[in-house]
């Protein structure tokens, strides 16, 4: 199959959908001729024009709010938020408006918008441009939260997000933008709420998201050499979460490691751990669960420190060994 990058997959999903559906448009900072901070929308203003690829002022709260208003009245906006850290500024519109409007109206109206935004560290962008704050959104009823880890998933899940009638937060990862994968040319949809077992194994389950999926797969290869058979589950969508797939995996392996880049304390990992600790899989556990996550510091600038802040392949390998040899 044709190989394209994660970034191209996202652009292709948007472009294909925008050709089909006049109601879809994108708004965000520098998404026009500049092509967006990461180049995701490059070429789109040329195809779709400035009405549908709308460059905005630096006004995150108005961008988000305008998208809410447009969605509520029949459009299907896609917000490109330049860095996911800036969601702090758009938070009121996302959390107090988009997520709640339908419920507060007693089920009338809908807010079909997609907020796409790059998160994560690894580019030296430091503390205010490297966070992974997806756990915040997971906590808010009314939102869907998607976090694709490869090009194929990105394209299919973004299509599903655009088709969804609810506000969807679509977390992209900066370091994944340039990664390549097989992606069908035609449009396709991956159901929101279906985890993907990225590697089958029987000794230990690693539930990993975004970049950590790749690190877990790398760790798994290493561990295979030592005869440890790792299963890697990628939830892909955090809300709704495919609890069933995770529970089945843990029942099979009896061991669970959760890995995400976001700060461990208060991170999404706690949710996964809890789902298992509360489920029938609890009884199948042969070792304590382990979470791997970011250290409790803002992301530092220095590349060595930056790397040391988030889990690496070696950390995963070590955690697996500890768990397996418990």
């Amino acid at each position, binding site marked *: 199959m044709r190989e394209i990058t994660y970034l191209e997959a996202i652009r292709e999903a948007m472009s294909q959908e925008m050709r089909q559906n006049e*109601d879809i*448009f994108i708004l965000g900072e520098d998404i026009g001729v500049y092509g967006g901070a990461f180049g995701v929308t490059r070429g789109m203003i040329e195809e779709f024009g400035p*009405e549908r690829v*709308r460059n*905005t*002022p630096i*006004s995150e*709260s*108005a*961008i*988000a*709010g*305008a*998208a*809410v*208003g*447009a*969605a*509520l*009245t*029949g*459009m299907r*906006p896609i917000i490109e938020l330049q860095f996911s850290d800036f969601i702090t500024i758009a938070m*009121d*519109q996302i959390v*107090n*408006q988009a997520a709640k*409007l*339908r*419920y*507060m*109206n*007693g*089920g*009338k*109206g*809908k*807010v*079909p918008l997609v907020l796409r935004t790059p998160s994560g560290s690894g580019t030296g962008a430091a503390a205010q441009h490297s966070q992974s704050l997806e756990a915040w959104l997971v906590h808010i*009823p*009314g939102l*869907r939260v998607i976090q694709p880890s490869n090009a194929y998933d990105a394209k299919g899940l973004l299509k599903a997000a655009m088709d969804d*009638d*609810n506000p969807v937060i679509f977390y992209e990862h900066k370091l994944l933008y340039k990664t390549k994968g097989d992606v069908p040319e035609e449009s396709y949809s991956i159901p929101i709420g279906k985890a993907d077992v990225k590697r089958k194994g029987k000794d230990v389950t690693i539930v990993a998201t975004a970049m950590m999926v790749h690190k877990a797969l790398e760790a798994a290869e290493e561990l295979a050499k030592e005869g440890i058979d790792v299963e890697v589950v990628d939830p892909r969508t955090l809300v709704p979460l495919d609890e069933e797939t995770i529970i089945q995996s843990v029942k099979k392996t009896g061991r669970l490691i959760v890995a995400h880049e976001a700060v461990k304390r208060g991170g999404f990992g706690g949710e996964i751990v809890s789902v298992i600790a509360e489920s029938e899989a609890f009884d199948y556990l042969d070792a304590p669960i382990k979470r791997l996550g970011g250290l409790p510091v803002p992301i530092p600038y220095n590349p060595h420190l930056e790397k040391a802040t988030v889990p690496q392949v070696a950390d995963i390998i070590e955690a697996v060994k500890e768990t397996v040899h418990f």
Partner: protein
Amino acid sequence: MLKTIKVPSHITEEKLVSLYKEMWLIRYFDEKVDQFFAKGMIHGTTHLCVGQEPSAAGAIAALKDIDKITSTHRGHGHCISKGANVNGMMAELFGRVDGYCKGKGGSIHIADLEKGNLGANGIVGGGIPIAVGAALTSKMKKEGYVVLCFFGDGASNEGSFHESLNLASIWDLPVVFICENNQYGMSGSVKEMTRVENIADRAVSYGMPGKVVDGLDAIEIMNTVYDAVERARQGHGPTLIEAKTYRWKGHSKSDAKKYRTREEEEEWRKKDGIKRFRDLLIEEGIFTEEKAKQLQEEAKQEVEDAVKFAENSPQPSIESLLEDVYA
């Protein structure tokens, strides 16, 4: 033809008459709500617009049916003027299934999408960017409607105000911003919380026209809003209108009103915009004093009926709790 007053061409004498009743409906509605809250028969909180009826009714009278509004926490008046029925509103305040939000929203979240009311908002300034987005839809889909965006003087100090007006301006969106300056946020007076003479002066920052109107003069409001709305409809972009007005009641449920004097309140009460409107219509020969009385009575009765309707509406079932989160 009216003798002394100029009104937009679509405003008939009948419309003026019904507007008069509408203002009473707003006032009686909020007076009634006030009583229920005082008695503890409604829970939560509410923000009454008694005294501010002309800016709600007058502004919305300038709109076409296809036009939309965004409202605020102090939104009962906007809601009624945009065509909501007081039964559904009162039922909502009672938290009942026949309420506009099936009892899930309450006073500060009533929306009436069918009539083009995109909703009250519990977040000060929260509705402003939403209005801009709704106007964007109108422009992109060529729907021809204009959005009238209500907010308070206090809200004009929020960042969302600034960002929204700028965005609406650069995109020439069909939205009209109307600031109901009732002199106070909750307790912060506009004089202490800004250093502008008029909130409308802030229009300069967005290169849009800014207009100040007497918020107790329904006719002036109607004309000014009409001109701005038609300007917006023709693609010439937004306007910021400020209506100087006053809320007679406290900010919300409990308010000792220590931040203002009883004299100031008295002065504003004297300028009652409903009475003024009535005198005008009588002077114009549009109705008689008796007719006015009758309309007022009718409004009162509608509110009484609404209470009965609300009281008879069932509580929502506990099962309904989990419904309506996702579309």
